[in-house]
């Protein structure tokens, strides 16, 4: 009995130590972003007090960069991509799992190539193509690329969810003579809501965090996303520790807030049958 208790305590010590390792660096950056320069260097490990509290870094970031624009751009790109990935992905997943027709298996394999092959490797041609049609350096160009990038994984995940929907539900609607399009939009689509969290982890978070495509496809300040904007700001102000820590915290905090609010759904989605 005693041995067992010691074992459980040991397990908690290991997990707690690892948890500390996981959040320690994040806490350190956020904590120090609210401190004056002297306090950042003098006592990096202590939280801000009345004496050392300072928002100078944040003010500098707002003055010296278009952080509001970057944030809005990221929000537009991510939300529009997310909406369309979910819509197109759900429609395709439904069609592929519900109706078997000649070539549907081949089409499913074709659509899953993108799960393993990173779209990044086509960047040279993507940039050339977008330049030809005048979509380089626009948010539209980014959104189209991100939809293409997110679709394969979301179709894969959504197909698993579609399969779990009881057959009777759609058949009952069919017996009542409801047209196929309405069956999807009014019966099936609302049932796919729990899949959103899983799709978000695998396709939406990578879009918000992506550096590569904004770096390759956008050249002007007004089309930068938050990840690229912060990256360039950090490069310029690397010696100004207040600004650097503030910019990092501003990129960290919204993601952490959303993660904490939705962590239950996100983790349930991850550990559910969706990824085997």
């Amino acid at each position, binding site marked *: 009995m005693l041995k067992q208790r010691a074992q459980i305590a040991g397990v908690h010590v290991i997990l707690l130590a690892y*948890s500390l390792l996981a959040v320690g660096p994040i806490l350190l950056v956020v904590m120090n972003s609210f401190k004056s320069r002297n306090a950042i260097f003098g006592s990096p490990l202590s939280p801000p007090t009345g004496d050392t509290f300072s928002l100078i870094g944040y003010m500098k970031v707002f003055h010296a960069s278009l952080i509001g624009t970057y944030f809005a751009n990221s929000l537009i790109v991510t939300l529009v991509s997310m909406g369309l990935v979910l819509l197109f992905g759900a429609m395709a997943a439904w069609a592929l799992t519900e109706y078997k027709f000649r070539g549907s298996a081949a089409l499913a394999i074709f659509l899953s190539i993108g799960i393993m092959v990173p779209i990044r490797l086509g*960047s040279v041609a993507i940039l050339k193509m977008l330049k030809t049609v005048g979509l380089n350096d626009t948010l539209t160009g980014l959104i189209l690329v991100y939809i293409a990038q997110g679709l394969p994984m979301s179709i894969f995940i959504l197909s698993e969810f579609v399969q779990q929907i009881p057959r009777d539900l759609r058949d009952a609607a069919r017996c009542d003579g409801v047209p196929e*399009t309405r069956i999807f939009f009014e019966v099936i689509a609302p049932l796919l809501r729990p899949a959103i969290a899983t799709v978000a982890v695998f396709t939406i978070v990578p879009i918000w965090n*992506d550096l590569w495509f904004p770096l390759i496809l956008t050249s002007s300040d007004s089309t930068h996303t938050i990840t690229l904007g912060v990256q360039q700001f950090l490069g310029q102000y690397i010696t100004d520790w207040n600004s650097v820590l503030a910019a990092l915290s501003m990129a960290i905090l919204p993601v952490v807030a959303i993660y904490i609010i939705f962590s239950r759904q996100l983790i349930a989605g991850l*550990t559910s049958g969706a990824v*085997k």
Partner: protein
Amino acid sequence: MAEPLSQVVASMPRGRFVALMTLFLGPAVVVYTLFSIWPLIATMGLSTYTTDNAGAYRFVGLANFVTLLADSVWSKPFWNAAWNNLIFFCVHMLVQNPIGIVLAGLLSLPGLKLKSFYRTVIFLPTMLSVVIVGFSWNLILSPLWGVAEGALKAVGLGSWFAPWLGLPSTALVTLALMSVWQFVGIPMMLIYASLLNIPDELVDAARVDGLGHFRIFLHIKLPLVLPTIGLVSILTFVGNFNAFDLIYSVKGALAGPNFASDILGTFFYRTFFGNQLQLGNPTMGAAVATVMFFIILVGVCLYLFIVQRRLRRYAF
């Protein structure tokens, strides 16, 4: 039993069925083909061309690949990047995945309290941008700030400290460990999920035979989650062989010191986009991307045809 579905579909005029499928599948297939599959093919096509000063394209066959692999101006940095990439991948396989397995094993212990707290916290870094993680660690490891040095001193290891990111001998491994720190949550979650799927009867039978938690994990659970470990390995492989963001944000396009942290992603970027040392060269860039494509393809095929087929026999 006649299925209502087949009746509905069979009674539907052919034209209407085609229209329905076009409506459902059309948008996904068009966007995906235009912006994912076609660019991959077109990039491979571009890799067989070269551009002159006026920007006109000229077909050169496989000459770009010969240059890349045999001309020492190109081949030296290419092989350096490929070798570094292999080291980067090995660090992930040897550190990230074993830690992920251990954490998943501990979290799946029956009756463990605070489970969801640990899961949430350990997965947190995975949600952050690589850029943010890179910069944060850059600050923490910086001798200027001295946080890492102070932490080591506190446990009596102060003499171990070195500016790891700045030394050619340690920069790459340090960067790889930063990436491990961030992404350990993915193997942990995937393996944890598949540990939860193991039928209770198997574990109970072993317990009746008097096996402890550790031996149950090693001899019963671990072999059963091998397919998931295979999946995690191929995800790690693909992710590592097109990694870029971390090295670029910490070390810049030149992947210093003296290219010690250069991997294929940064090499591709420099070739394609140019940098302080050279002009951008899209057709050579396309050749590098094509080589990266084949490296990833070989990995994925090995996984699909060997690893997955072997492991499936033991799957439940």
